């Protein structure tokens, strides 16, 4: 009967005749810089800006397509005299009111839905009906109900926020693992404390997605709604600023307005939501 044999590697076989093999190598500076998504995106932005400027100069028609420099000049002029900031604030104020009301209503609706079966049916039916309905389509109706003013805007904003948040929150609650639910009940948590201390944090990635989607919906809806009737609310918002500038053929200002819409959207996404993500779902390792 043969015995198992152990054949140890000699030193030069392991090292392949060379010195210690390379275990770790520092990446070069360019490689490391290129690993930053922010840097890569900045490069793209600069490239787009250069293309814009060159094409607009080539076209040489500021009524159709102003150059980037004209647009930026218009932007700074309107920022300097405070008119643009005032418009932005008018828009953002209405937006925040609508967003907040929408979130509260969505919270109530999902709280009912998670606790009762009829509530679930109610939520599912309502979201199925209203989610596909563009908020802007409700505007004529809102104008009759609430008149020409901020109330109508808030109404359509609530509509655009409510269903996105409710749908995502509810889906998030449903996907909380049975084990975590059992853990929560093991602690004797019931009713609202159970929802707030177990379900909400466990479903937070979905809730955050809902909030992000709702923010984008709301922002688009608001600008579109203002383009239609922003003047009636006395002081128009950003959408009205774009519309007004078009009527007086101040096309660089139209572009400046559009640029502001984009910048605010990006800022909220990248500073606001990204920050929340980093402090929550990424820190918890539930989303990469």
């Amino acid at each position, binding site marked *: 009967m043969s015995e198992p044999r152990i054949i140890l590697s000699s030193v030069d076989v392991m090292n392949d005749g060379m010195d210690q093999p390379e275990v770790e190598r520092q990446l070069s500076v360019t490689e490391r810089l290129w690993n930053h998504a922010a840097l890569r995106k900045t490069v793209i932005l600069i490239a787009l800006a250069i293309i814009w400027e060159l094409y607009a100069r080539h076209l040489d028609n500021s009524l159709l397509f102003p150059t980037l420099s004209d647009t930026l000049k218009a932007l700074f002029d309107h920022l300097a005299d405070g008119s643009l900031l005032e418009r932005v604030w008018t828009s953002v104020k209405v937006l925040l009111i609508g967003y907040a009301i929408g979130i509260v209503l969505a919270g109530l609706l999902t709280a009912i839905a998670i606790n009762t079966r009829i509530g679930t049916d109610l939520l599912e039916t309502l979201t199925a009906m209203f989610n596909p309905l563009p908020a802007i389509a409700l505007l004529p109706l809102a104008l009759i109900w609430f008149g020409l003013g901020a109330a109508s805007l808030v109404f359509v904003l609530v509509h655009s926020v409510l269903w996105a948040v409710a749908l995502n929150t509810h889906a998030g609650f449903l996907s909380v693992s049975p084990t975590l639910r059992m853990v929560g009940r093991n602690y004797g948590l019931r009713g609202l404390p159970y929802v707030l201390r177990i379900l909400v944090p466990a479903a937070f990635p979905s809730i955050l997605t809902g909030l992000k989607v709702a923010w984008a919906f709301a922002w688009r809806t608001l600008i579109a709604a203002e383009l239609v009737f922003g003047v009636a609310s006395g002081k128009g918002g950003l959408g009205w600023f774009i519309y007004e500038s078009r009527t007086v053929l101040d096309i660089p200002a139209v572009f400046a307005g559009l640029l502001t819409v984009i910048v605010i959207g990006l800022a909220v996404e990248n500073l606001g939501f990204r920050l929340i993500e980093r402090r929550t779902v990424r820190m918890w390792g*539930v989303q990469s």
Partner: protein
Amino acid sequence: MAEPLLDVDRVTLRYKTPQSLVTATHRVKFRVERSDRYVLLGPSGCGKSTLLKAVGGYLSPGEGTIRINGKKVEGPGADRMMVFQEFDQLLPWKTVAENVAFPLRVARKLSKAEANERARAYIDKVNLTKFADSYTHTLSGGMKQRVAIARGMAMEPDILLMDEPFAALDALTRRRMQDELLQLWEDTRFTVLFVTHSIAEAIRIGSRILLLSPHPGRVKAEIEDVASVAGDSARAGELEKTIDNLLFATDAPDVEEVPA
């Protein structure tokens, strides 16, 4: 006779699937005394996990009663802390220390300082001192299970309910965790009800073993004084073989396990 800590009296458990009503256990009867390491052992389909969940209060028996300290079990509660098999039983939005302290705050109503102090003490006990402030996703499977055990023990419950807590671990880690659990038991002599399908694990962990036969789960035998074979691998091996025969040999030919 003094009242047992846990009295499971002729408990029949049924659960519904969309197609049928399944009987998980049929008139199962056993008693757990204080400081027992009581193991429910049986092949899959013997209803041992269902039984543990019923003791946890997540299911109510169709027949029979479950009493803890003479009080009927009506629902989940912090007097019976569960340790699950799944690694996702920790709250990912809390650090290790917060995970252990959280139930102390909400169920035991301890002050923040007291809860923290006790949580850290139990984290020390399971050798995770260095990871007390880490979020749970940075831990390995074995470490997560240790946190769950620390969380259960920190509550100082009447009974600790463990549902195959080491089943998802690799063999080496499982072995070490079993030793650690026994060491912890030596320190505090807590009562534990432990579910497993591994005969070897049952013999290592248990002081008493309840053997269950499947479809539906019924009590086949009860083994006392299991700890007397501890450290004697020959006698433990013999016991393992005997249990194996009891569970499988007699009805192996006609009861073929049907894969689900």
